[in-house]
């Protein structure tokens, strides 16, 4: 897991002039990490619901803080997502660091540091360690957006950082409270499973839950905490956006499962109705705003808000299908957003604009790019046969068994999705080729290599999601059980519903 650090150090020692070498080295590192990640996944015992690959070292014994790592099925899936997307992002954005404020080298150093922290944040098994990664992660992202983005990049970076810091500090207050309460009840600790055993009064539990939840809701981002996202996604380079929306924001939804539900099951139950409402609002609101966007990057950002609404809905439906669906959704959304952002990034760097109105008839000029975008768009609107469909279906089924009304309203989100994806596709890809688009070039080999695995994953998981679901389902069922819930309709076997 420490591989990317090594890579970052190596890259940082390179001289500035050797840009190519820095890129190659960064790519090699992410590739090695990806292979290591896959190797780890194959050794993962999927029916074992305990944490695996556990390691623990004492870090700050005075406060009972350990450097403790360990993953369950949900964390494994997200780590896989991070390590798989990283090399793709590096390859796809081969030239995006050029023209930034600083050297190309620093771009890749930041990128690799970010990758390390993403793995760390999913693997952390100690609340303090999690917080350290959670907050420290902001710094590289901040510099990636502010230093290499476009447009109002500095403002967007600051907005991103301030929102996240604010949420993080609320979480810190909750963490401090947990730490002190654990001290009162037999010894300071930050171990998640030990903290889950604490006896909390219901007021305390509710307040602490809110501290964590708001931090995650900002990160995820859930309506009404979402306003930083479109700006950040608009300003960041496509690669950074992929990591930001694809992986980083998943920390929020992951945190809801891992921390909110596990540490504060009763408070989760109390707040569920509110959160379900927020999630449904996010779905519909994100979709409506997406329809109105004139810019590809902002469009994708708003679709993500809608999608994060689905994920949150799945989590707080408190059913095992909902959880499995939400986790799978996180993975799939990572890939479909990656595809959309990368292709939109290539389109706009060729055209010099990301306004939807500036494109037209790309189908004739750049057929491959257009088809790839079309494909990614279909995945985003959850066309059956593509991966998102499975997860969206699972979330809706899981929600329906407990909250039928919410599920029905959320289903309208899918209809709106068809609108917000198909309208821009029609404008940009089809029809006669408009001025300024005649001489655009199609994807080159490097870009094809980068995008192919993404599209392949989307397609394969659409037809055959069981390898991932087999890993996710036991963990999801376990987390539901730990939070003290049972599925309302036990007749639907969680595996049966997936086929």
């Amino acid at each position, binding site marked *: 897991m420490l591989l990317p650090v090594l890579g970052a150090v190596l890259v940082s020692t390179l001289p500035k002039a050797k840009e190519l070498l820095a890129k190659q080295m960064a790519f090699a590192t992410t590739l090695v990490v990806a292979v290591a990640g896959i190797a780890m996944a194959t050794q993962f015992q999927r029916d074992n619901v305990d944490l695996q690959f556990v390691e623990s070292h004492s870090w700050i014994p*005075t*406060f009972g803080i350990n450097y403790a790592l360990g993953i369950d099925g949900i964390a494994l899936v997200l780590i896989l997502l991070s390590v798989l997307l990283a090399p793709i992002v590096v390859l796809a954005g081969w030239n995006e660091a050029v023209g930034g404020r600083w050297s190309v080298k620093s771009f890749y150093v930041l990128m690799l540091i970010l990758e390390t922290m993403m793995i760390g944040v999913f693997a952390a098994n100690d609340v303090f360690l999690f917080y*350290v990664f959670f907050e420290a992660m*902001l710094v590289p992202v901040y510099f990636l957006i502010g230093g290499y983005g476009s447009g109002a990049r500095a403002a967007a970076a*600051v907005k991103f*950082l301030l929102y996240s*810091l604010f949420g993080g500090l609320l979480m810190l*207050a909750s963490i401090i409270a947990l730490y002190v309460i654990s001290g009162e009840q037999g010894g300071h600790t930050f171990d998640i499973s030990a903290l889950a055993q604490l006896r909390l009064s219901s007021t305390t539990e509710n307040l602490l839950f809110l501290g964590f939840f708001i931090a995650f809701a900002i990160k995820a981002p859930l309506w009404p905490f979402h306003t930083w996202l479109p700006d950040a996604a608009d300003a960041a380079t496509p690669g950074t956006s992929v990591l930001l929306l694809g992986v980083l924001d998943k920390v929020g939804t992951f945190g809801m499962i891992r921390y909110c539900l596990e540490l504060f099951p009763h408070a989760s139950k109390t707040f569920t109705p509110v959160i379900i409402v927020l999630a449904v609002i996010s779905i519909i609101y994100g979709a409506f705003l997406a329809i109105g966007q004139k810019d590809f990057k902002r469009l994708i950002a708003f679709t993500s808000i809608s999608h994060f609404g689905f994920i949150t809905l799945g989590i707080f439906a408190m059913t095992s299908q909902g959880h499995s669906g939400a986790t799978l959704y996180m993975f799939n959304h990572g890939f479909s957003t990656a595809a959309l952002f990368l292709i939109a990034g290539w389109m706009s760097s060729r055209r010099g604009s990301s306004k939807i109105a500036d494109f037209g008839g790309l189908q004739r000029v750049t057929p491959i790019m257009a088809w790839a975008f079309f494909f990614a768009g279909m995945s985003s609107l959850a066309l059956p046969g593509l991966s998102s469909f499975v997860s969206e279906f699972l979330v809706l089924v899981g929600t329906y068994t407990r909250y039928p009304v919410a599920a029905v309203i959320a289903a309208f989100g899918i209809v709106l999705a068809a609108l917000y994806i198909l309208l821009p596709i029609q404008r940009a890809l089809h029809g006669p080729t408009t001025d300024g688009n005649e001489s655009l070039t199609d994807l080159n080999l490097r870009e094809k290599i980068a995008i192919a695995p993404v599209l392949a994953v989307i397609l394969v998981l659409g037809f055959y999601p069981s390898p991932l679901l087999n890993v996710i389902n036991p963990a999801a069922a376990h987390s539901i059980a730990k939070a003290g819930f049972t599925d309302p309709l036990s007749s639907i076997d969680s595996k049966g519903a997936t086929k």
Partner: protein
Amino acid sequence: MIAFVAPSLSYSLLAPILIVLGGAVLTVIFEAFLSKAIRPIAQLSVTLGTLVLALGQVWRIRHESSMTAAMGSVAIDGPAILLQASVLILAVLGVFLIADHDHFTVVAATLPGSEEELASIRSGEKLTEVYPLTLFAVAGMMLFPIATDLITLFVALEMLSLPLYLMAGLSRRRRLMSQEAALKYFLLGAFSSAFFLFGAAFLYGFSGSVSLAGIFEAVSGGTGNSVFLLIGIIFLSVGLLFKVGAVPFHAWTPDVYQGAPTPVTAFMAAATKVAAFGAILRIFYTSFANAYWDWRPILTVIAIITMVFGSLVAISQRDIKRMLAYSSIAHAGFLLSGVIALNKAGLNASIFYLFAYGIATLGAFAVVTLVRDSAGEVTDLNRWAGLGKRSPFIATVFATFLLAFAGIPLTSGFIGKFSIFSAAYESGNKLIVVVGVLSSAIAAYFYIRVIVLMFFTDLAEDGTSVIIPSILTRATIVLTFAITIFLGVFPAPFLNFISSTAIFIR
């Protein structure tokens, strides 16, 4: 006739302070008798030698514990040793900065803008009076947190303050501002000393004793007029809170931080805070511990106002030194929450925070000394724009200090903030934790704004440049940077050391 008893002093335990005082006297003699040519180097080496020697002595007595080192007037215990060591380390790093003579006027007595001033600058001589002043101030700072009776406390307070008043007025450039700062500092400082004395008198009236232990017994015994106790606590606190710059006794802070020569600001901001908070901790943890019902609400309100005011006003500052001054006010508020906690964790956390904050402050001001144009230091924030482009290393280091102030993980500031807030929470004071966390969020805004200026704003072509630092300044920057990161990543040994030694004796 009263029989005179010769005081019995434990020279071994008092050695650190005595060495510093001896060094100070030696530098005064050098000032009078050495030729101007060799004076700067001689003074510098004596000063540094003294400080290092004293630090060695502190290390030697690190496990000692005694109330009777000087007839019950000072306590040598864990916190005393940790605080003395912190002051000395900060002083060494501060002297590294002070050694850059370019910041100081040559003859402080000349009128600003006069012919004599020009002549003195042309002569190429260097001001060396600053070394004895520094050493006397250091001695005062070492005495302040270990003093256990009100008279010694007052002597120490004056001993550390008087040299600082002078040092604040020694700036070479913008001398009027510097002298104004010195005068302001002196006048307000004199007022606060008067308050301190007034409070001490009331406490004597209450308890019939000037020793902290005597006051403690009077408080526990419940005898005595509690109105006197209350008035005494309030006035004594005013004197102490003035030194740390807590709202509403902060008015001097921005002006003095801005006007004083930056190396002096660095030394003062870091070391005075350690000394003054050391004394506050000792007084409130030992003497007034059982009267917490009386002072806790007041201090809580002051801490809250201080945190919020410092963070809010810092946002509107356009000058880097003034911004750091307001940030120091906000940090005084955070530190006060450690005092209010009144538990072992609060003491440990405060000591850690003081050291971590002092180091980061020194480093930050050290960077400020480097950014100059032809007329001296550039402290206008707008002209720091694009610093990251011009000198990435310095800008990165400065950004690290700012992130440490903001309490971002993997820097010392985060561990400090975490430990101090958890101590406050442990004492049941949840309000202060919430306010502290929220004002940290506000504070983060202006720290980040500086980072934005340095990294994300285009270069200002107005002659601002980063000078090549001298070896000593470079050492300060590198060391403070390394310590800030180290305490953020591997704080365990340091925290263990603090928690195993930091126990007040009465």
